[in-house]
C-alpha cells in the first residue's frame, strides 16, 4: 500500500546538471510555468553569481509545509516558495528561520508590508484570485463574484476545490459579499452550495482549467491572473475581470526552513528573488506583481496583474487567520459542499 501511495506523495525532483564539487541549494518551488520562470529569473542569475547549483523540488504550499514539519530541524529544502498563510503556519510551529535583512542587499527596496511576523518569511510577489473569462463566449465581462450564480453562466463555469487557494478565496469572497465575516462563514457556505453543484468540476490543480477553457467547456472561472496571462501568451482566448467587490490577494512568500546548513547560500538566493532584476523578470514572464519598489511594469503586464485600483480594492486576508481556520473551513466544505 505505502509503495503505491508514495508515487503521488513523492514530489518530483528536477536536478539541474551541476559540476562535481559545486554546492547545491535545494529550492522548493511550485510546478508548471512557475518553475520555468523561477529557473529563468532566479536560478540562472544565482548560479552565475555564486557558482553553486540549484535543484528544484516541485510541490504545492501545503505539501511543502507538511515536508518541512516532517523533517523538522533537518529540512531537505534550503529555501521554499510557499503561500503566506502556510508561511505563517510554519512560523507558528517554530519551523521558519528568521531572515536576516541586513544580509540582503535588496532589502531596503522591498515594501515594508512584505515582511512576515518576526521576519519569519517575506512575501516575494503579489497576485490575486480574480475572475477569468473567455471574451469569445462572454460579451459583457463579469463584474461580481456572485455573477457565477447567474443562469446565463449555468454549466459554463468552474470553481476551485477548497484545497486550492482560489477555492478558499472564492468561498470567502462570496461569504463577504453575502454579509458574512471570517468568524461567521454561514452565509458563504449557504450561497456557495448551489454554485458548487452547478460547477463543471471542482478543480484541484490550477492548470486543470487550461483544458476546460480551451475546449470551451467553461466560459468563466475564479482563477489567477498570472496563470491566465501565461495562457494568453500561448494563444488562449482569455481576459481578466476584477470583480467590483475586489479581488482576493495572493501573496506567495519565501521561507528558509529552520536548521538548513546552507542558510547563507539560501539568503543569497533570496536576495536574487527580491532584487529589482529578479522581480522585474518574474513579473514580465509570470504576470505577477512585484514587491520591489524599483520594478516598473510594462503596459501588457499592468493590464493583467493587480495594480492601481485593482490592487487598492484587493482584499488581503490576515494569513494567521487563514492558518487558524482553514482546517475547519475545509472540513465543513467536505461535509456540506463537496459531498
Amino acid at each position, binding site marked *: 500500500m505505502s509503495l503505491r501511495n508514495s508515487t503521488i506523495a513523492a514530489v518530483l525532483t528536477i536536478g539541474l546538471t551541476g559540476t562535481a564539487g559545486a554546492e547545491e541549494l535545494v529550492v522548493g518551488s511550485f510546478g508548471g510555468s512557475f518553475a520555468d520562470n523561477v529557473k529563468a529569473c532566479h536560478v540562472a542569475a544565482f548560479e552565475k553569481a555564486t557558482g553553486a547549483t540549484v535543484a528544484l523540488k516541485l510541490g504545492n504550499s501545503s505539501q511543502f509545509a507538511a515536508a518541512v514539519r516532517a523533517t523538522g530541524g533537518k529540512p531537505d529544502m534550503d529555501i521554499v516558495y510557499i503561500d503566506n498563510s502556510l508561511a505563517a503556519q510554519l512560523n507558528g510551529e517554530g519551523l521558519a528561520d528568521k531572515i536576516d535583512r541586513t544580509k540582503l542587499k535588496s532589502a531596503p527596496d522591498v515594501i515594508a508590508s512584505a515582511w512576515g511576523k518576526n521576519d519569519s518569511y517575506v512575501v516575494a510577489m503579489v497576485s490575486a484570485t480574480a475572475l477569468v473569462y473567455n471574451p469569445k463566449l462572454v460579451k459583457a465581462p463579469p463584474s461580481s463574484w456572485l455573477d457565477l450564480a447567474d443562469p446565463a453562466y449555468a454549466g459554463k463555469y468552474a470553481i476551485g476545490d477548497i484545497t486550492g487557494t482560489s477555492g478558499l478565496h472564492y468561498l470567502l469572497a462570496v461569504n463577504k459579499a453575502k454579509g458574512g465575516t471570517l468568524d461567521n462563514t454561514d452565509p458563504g457556505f449557504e450561497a456557495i452550495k448551489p454554485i458548487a453543484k452547478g460547477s463543471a468540476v471542482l478543480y484541484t490543480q490550477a492548470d486543470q482549467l487550461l483544458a476546460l477553457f480551451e475546449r470551451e467547456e467553461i466560459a468563466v472561472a475564479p482563477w489567477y491572473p498570472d496563470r491566465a496571462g501565461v495562457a494568453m501568451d500561448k494563444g488562449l482566448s482569455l481576459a481578466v475581470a476584477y470583480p467590483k467587490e475586489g479581488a482576493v490577494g495572493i501573496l506567495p512568500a519565501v521561507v528558509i526552513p529552520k536548521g538548513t546548513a546552507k542558510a547563507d547560500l539560501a539568503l543569497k538566493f533570496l536576495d536574487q528573488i527580491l532584487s529589482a532584476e529578479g522581480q522585474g523578470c518574474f513579473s514580465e514572464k509570470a504576470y505577477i506583481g512585484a514587491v520591489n519598489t524599483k520594478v516598473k511594469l510594462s503596459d501588457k503586464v499592468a493590464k493583467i496583474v493587480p495594480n492601481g485600483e485593482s490592487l487598492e480594492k484587493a482584499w488581503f486576508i490576515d494569513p494567521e487567520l487563514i*492558518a487558524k481556520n482553514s*482546517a475547519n473551513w475545509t472540513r465543513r466544505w467536505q461535509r456540506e459542499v463537496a459531498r
Partner: protein
Amino acid sequence: MMPVRHALLILAPLGLVLAAFFLVPVLMLLPTSFGSYVPGSGIAKGVWTLENYLRIATDDYYREVIWRTLGLGLGVSLASLILGYPVAWLIARGPASWRVPLILLVVFPMLLNLVVRSFGWIVLLANRGLVNNLLMQLGLITAPIKLMFNLTGVMIGLTHIYLPFMVLMLVAAIRNIPRDVEAAAATLGSSRTHVFLSVTLPLSAPGILAGSILVFVLTISALVTPRMLGGPTYKVMATLIYDEYVQLLDWPSGSALSFALALMAIGIIWASSRLARRWAGMA
C-alpha cells in the same frame, strides 16, 4: 518436517525488513494518533486524547466515507472476478498457443505507470472525453453523462488496474485443479456446464478468495486512482487520509484514520482466511 529453528531462519530476512520499514514506522504513528492538532500552531505537546478515534465513530461524514470505501472494495473485487474468471479459465484451459499472448495481454497494462493509466481514463471519461463525445455524436445522449468524480469513474479505473492481480491468482488456482476430476465427472454423464459449476468452480474457490482479498485490500488502500478519478467530491479513506495529512496538516486525525483503515484490512483478511479454511475443509 522442517525444524522450527530453520523455518525462523528462513523468515528472518523478510521479518527484519518488515519490522524496520513497516512495523516500526507504523507504531511510531500510534502516539501521534492520540495527539491533538491546533490549527496555526501545530500538534499540541503533551496532550493526549481519544477524540480522533471518537470522531471516526461518530462523525457521519467519516462513516459515509468508510462504508463507501468498503463498498468500493467489494464492488471492484466482484467486477474483477466476473471479468477475470473467463480470461483466467481461457489461459488455463484454452488452446496452448493462446496462453502466452493472453498472459502478456493481462500483464502488459501493469508495465505502464499507474498515473498514466489513470490519466488515460480521465481522457476517456471526462465531460468532453472520448466516450461522451462518441455517445453525443451518435445522438444517444444530448448532454454529457457524468462518468468521473463519482462511483462509476473510480470503479472503472480501479477494476482496470487490479484486474491483472485477480486473473493471475485465478490462473494458478484453475491450473491446480486435476483435469481427471473434470474428466471423471464428464464420463459419468455431466454436461460441460454442470462439470464447470459443480467441479471446476468449487475447486477454484481458494483462488477466487485469494484474488478477491488481494484486490479488496489493494482497492481500499488505493490513493492515486481515487484522487484522479474521484476528485474532491468522491472521497475514499485513502484520499481522506491524504487530505488530513497534507492539506489540513492534521496529522493526529490522519494517523487515527490510517489505523482504522489498517485494522479494517487486517480484520477482513483474518475473517476471510478463516472462511477459506472452512471451505478447504469442505472440499
